[in-house]
């Protein structure tokens, strides 16, 4: 177990300090920012999926009262530096890079591609201005599917690439693929599709850029998962020193991977502010958010599985195609993560993996909560389909294939150790929570009455943050930093690069610091969202529980040691005899000696100590994740399918999960439920649909359907005992797991419900009409 001192707060559902402002209506989101002289931007966007821009005439727009400026793609090209997307720049990727201008100059590559930005006294006027900009387009044939893009003769989306294959085909092998397949009792083959869907946070993208000519500083009020990545991106685009960019972020209305770095629109707005010398605000509306902000998950897989007659999954050979849309951001990096994760917690002996990435005239592929999630979908679907072929129970086949928890830990064939993975335990616990034999009885009885219930299971692991990285390989992403300071008012300040957008870091990190340092929870303040105050860091990849929880724990200890050294001088005692309880430094066993930590801080700042005393009550700590670890779990869904209408009701959903030690159970459970809801939404409701001409069809909330309170049942969550890996830090992330494993869980349940019809499911999106089609196909 963790060694946290006192543990008064850690492990308990402490009420969030954020809620005091959020529930009073006093949250500060980027659209709440108002600056004197602020202007508003709206983007003129392409109505075509693919076209040449022949001419842009903004004269009528510029003449409209209230319009301050219209900047075309060419205007912006002249005032910025062309470069890759900031996220792409940070995590690299290799492979050919598409070349394009900030806003479209000669080519538009998706419906909604920004062609010009209109800056006006109000958003209303800016939209009026957009209607007056005249653009001559020449239609070009759009490339709207991966299949079309794979044809090297298809019209190239990017002239400099020559064709639309941005991630050329490559193959890796792990283990003796040929041997394992040759020796297997049977080979099963499947084609699996995951459909395009998207993040859809309730707050879209947006920013206020404010350039101050006197200081040469560009201040960016942003909604971002990391202020420094945004800062680097803005600086690079504007061609200025990163020290001349300050990024501020307040409350953020969700992101799920969307708001990282800076989008083309945000960079254009920054450039516009500099050109005009006035603050410029851009807040994307819902139609922009759905059409162009980015989409995810459009991947297809050809899978061969080498299987024994008793249900051992011996090997997988997988070939995937990923549709990265236009303006590649990070889609080309997803296949390698999928490759690494495909074996999951199973004893897979061989893996062959190949991938190809294409660009198309659709929205860019962006990170969406568990970007590699398809590896779990593929693996869990394959296991289920094999189980059906062999007449095995879904729990039974998984338990058979789970790698045993050994010491040293079993290795995934792709190279990572399955340290502390509790898949077996989660499956067994899940089976206890869901009385499967009782369900099977009920299922049979209901089938006799013409009602179709089904049960589905799936299991997953996620690297949250994953096992300890080999020495020195982490880079800036391999650690989290924190600056901790005891202020003169007794407040313990934590400066972190974490950028909460629902995760409650201002509460959870304060819990850890309060316990470790010895002050009441209310005496800790977590400072986020100012690139001049916080060290590098970002929120994403389910890293913060371990990385930032850990740096908080260790940093608080270091700060406490400094404070006790100074307090020892004040109390004329040995630091070893001192402790901090409830914000008071006290000599152990002698309560009359208590002095508040604020007093220690004031004395330290007073200058009374000589140079031989370190009276600067501030530390800078870093933490690389310690032993790290996997999170994971097993989920089960019970559904009812109305076979006359295709409507599916999720009747019951149970998750047995293991994320190590919980900092704040309510926060953990909120993350899990939210992820599961997105997974249920993906299967039953959400699809980013395009027609043959590349017109986007899910551009309002009447067509892109999000799950509501009537679609998500009460989700039951069981937390497993952790397998402690580290002496101190055993919190692991849970941000992405729900969204990773819920889709195969629900698909599996639907397939089970439709078993009497002989239905097998090889896709993830099952709206009512599709369910009736699947049934009819078997008839």
């Amino acid at each position, binding site marked *: 177990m963790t060694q946290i001192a006192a543990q008064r707060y850690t492990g308990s559902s402490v009420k969030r300090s954020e809620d005091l402002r959020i529930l009073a209506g006093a949250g500060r989101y980027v659209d709440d920012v108002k600056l004197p002289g602020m202007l508003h931007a709206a983007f003129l966007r392409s109505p075509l999926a693919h076209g040449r821009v022949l001419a842009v005439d903004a004269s009528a727009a510029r003449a409209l009262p209230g319009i301050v400026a219209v900047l075309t793609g060419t205007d912006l090209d002249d005032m910025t530096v062309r470069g890759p997307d900031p996220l792409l720049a940070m995590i690299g990727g290799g492979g050919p890079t598409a070349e394009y201008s900030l806003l479209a100059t000669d080519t538009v590559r998706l419906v909604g591609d920004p062609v010009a930005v209109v800056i006006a006294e109000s958003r209303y006027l800016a939209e009026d201005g957009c209607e007056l900009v005249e653009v001559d387009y020449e239609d070009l044939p759009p490339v709207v599917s991966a299949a079309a893009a794979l044809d090297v003769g298809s019209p190239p989306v990017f002239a400099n690439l020559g064709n639309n294959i941005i991630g050329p085909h490559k193959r890796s092998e792990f283990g003796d693929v040929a041997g394992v397949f040759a020796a297997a009792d049977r080979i099963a083959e499947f084609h699996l599709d995951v459909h395009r869907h998207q993040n859809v946070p309730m707050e879209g993208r947006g920013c206020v850029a404010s350039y101050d000519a006197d200081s040469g500083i560009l201040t960016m009020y942003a909604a971002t998962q990391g202020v420094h990545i945004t800062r680097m991106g803005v600086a690079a685009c504007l061609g200025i020193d990163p020290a001349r960019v300050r990024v501020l972020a307040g409350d953020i209305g969700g992101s799920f991977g969307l708001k990282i770095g800076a989008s083309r629109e945000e960079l254009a707005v920054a450039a516009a502010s500099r050109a005009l010398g006035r603050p410029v605000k851009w807040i994307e509306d819902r139609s922009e958010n759905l059409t162009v902000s980015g989409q995810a998950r459009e991947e297809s897989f050809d899978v061969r599985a080498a299987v024994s007659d008793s249900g051992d999954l011996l090997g997988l050979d997988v070939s995937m195609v990923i549709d990265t849309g236009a303006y590649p951001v990070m889609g080309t990096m997803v296949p390698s993560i999928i490759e690494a994760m495909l074996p999951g917690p199973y004893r897979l002996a061989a893996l062959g993996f190949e991938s190809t990435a294409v660009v198309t005239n659709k929205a860019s592929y962006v990170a969406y909560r568990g970007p590699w999630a398809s590896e779990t979908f593929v693996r869990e679907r394959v296991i289920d389909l094999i189980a059906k072929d062999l007449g095995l129970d879904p729990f039974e086949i998984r338990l058979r294939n789970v790698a045993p928890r050994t010491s040293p830990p079993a290795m995934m064939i792709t190279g990572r150790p399955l340290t502390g993975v509790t898949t077996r335990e989660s499956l067994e616990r899940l089976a206890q929570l869901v009385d499967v034999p009782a369900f099977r009885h009920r299922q049979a009885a209901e089938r006799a009455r013409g009602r179709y219930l089904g049960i589905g299971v799936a299991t997953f692991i996620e690297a949250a943050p994953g096992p300890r990285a080999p020495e020195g390989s982490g880079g800036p992403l391999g650690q989290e930093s924190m600056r901790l300071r005891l202020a003169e008012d007794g407040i313990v300040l934590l400066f972190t690069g974490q950028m909460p957008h629902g995760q409650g870091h201002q509460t959870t990190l304060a819990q850890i610091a309060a316990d470790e340092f010895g002050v009441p929870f209310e005496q800790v303040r977590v400072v986020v969202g100012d690139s001049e105050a916080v060290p590098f860091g970002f929120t994403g990849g389910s890293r913060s529980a371990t990385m930032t929880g850990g740096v908080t724990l260790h940093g608080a200890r270091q700060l406490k040691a400094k404070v006790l050294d100074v307090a020892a001088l004040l109390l004329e005692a040995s630091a070893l005899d001192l402790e901090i309880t409830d914000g008071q430094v006290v000599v152990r066993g002698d309560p009359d000696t208590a002095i508040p930590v604020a007093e220690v801080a004031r004395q330290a700042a007073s200058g009374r100590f000589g140079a031989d005393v370190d009276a600067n009550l501030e530390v800078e700590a870093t933490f690389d994740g310690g032993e790290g670890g996997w999170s994971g779990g097993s989920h089960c869904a019970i559904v009812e399918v109305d076979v006359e209408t295709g409507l599916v009701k999720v009747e019951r959903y149970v998750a047995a999960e293991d994320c190590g030690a919980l900092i704040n159970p309510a926060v953990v459970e909120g993350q899990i439920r939210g992820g599961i809801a997105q997974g249920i939404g993906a299967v039953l409701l959400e699809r980013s649909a395009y027609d043959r001409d590349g017109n986007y069809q899910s551009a309002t909330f009447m067509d892109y359907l999000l799950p509501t309170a*009537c*679609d998500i049942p009460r989700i039951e969550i069981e937390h497993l005992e952790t397998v402690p890996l580290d002496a101190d830090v055993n919190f692991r992330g849970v941000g992405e797991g729900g969204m990773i494993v819920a889709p195969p869980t629900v698909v599996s349940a639907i397939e089970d419900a439709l078993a009497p019809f002989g239905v097998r499911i090889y896709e993830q999106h099952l709206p*009512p009409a599709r369910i009736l089609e699947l049934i009819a196909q078997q008839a």
Partner: protein
Amino acid sequence: MKLPEFEYQVPATVAEAIGLLAQHQDEASLLAGGQSLIPLLAMRLARPAVLIDINGLDDLSGVSVTDGRVTIGALTREYMAEESETVAETVPLLAAALPLIGHEAIRSRGTLGGSLAHADPAAELPAVARALDAEFVVRSESGERVIPAAEWFEGYLTTSRRPEEILVEVRFPVAEPGTGVAFQEVARRHGDFAMVGLAASLTLADGTITDARLAFSGVADVPVRAVEAESLLRGQQPSAELFAEAASRAAGQLDPPADLHGSSDYRKKVAAALVRRGLQAAADNAHERQ
């Protein structure tokens, strides 16, 4: 998604409103609840030169019963009709449909007349009006016209209201004794527009169906009466087999459109299922209401 400019007029009387319509004709849109019109304005799909806000015309709101007919003012808010005991007693099919319209906040502002004049074929009220042969009373400078439901709905978002006319009230027949109703929908989510919806009403006397009304939403560009199925049902005793036959007849008449949410074939299958279920529910409701 900000609204475009328009000239804004707020008539103080129905006569003033009519005068504005006479003056501006189809350059003007009437703003009632705004729950359908304002989204269209926000998306800049609707571009009226003049917006005539009639929310102040209290004369056009209210429920009254005379001579076997229920008259509902066009500006009656959906939530008020939902809470009206008179509506529940006299037009139970309308009472069954109202709670399915969107969500509570939509019904706070949305009006009966607004929904019926907007005439979205996937909406609930047009199907109810069609099922019950409601009458639409419109007024212009030339006087009043009464338009039966069968002639009111002309096409997608199109009614036979002339540009200079305003809908002032809608009249429904008072339900006969022995009537049971059901309004059922297959929608992607609770509160959404239906992919297919069914307004069903059965009147029973001595165990025999004396009147049957079936009207679909979502299967064409207007609400559709299933007249062949209705004539099959009249004079018969309710039974599962009868309802199945009616379902088959009703669905067989349909040629529904396809869209993102369902194919034509899907809608036909769902329509049939709704008829079976709706008729059973209406029959059950007839027993409950006795």
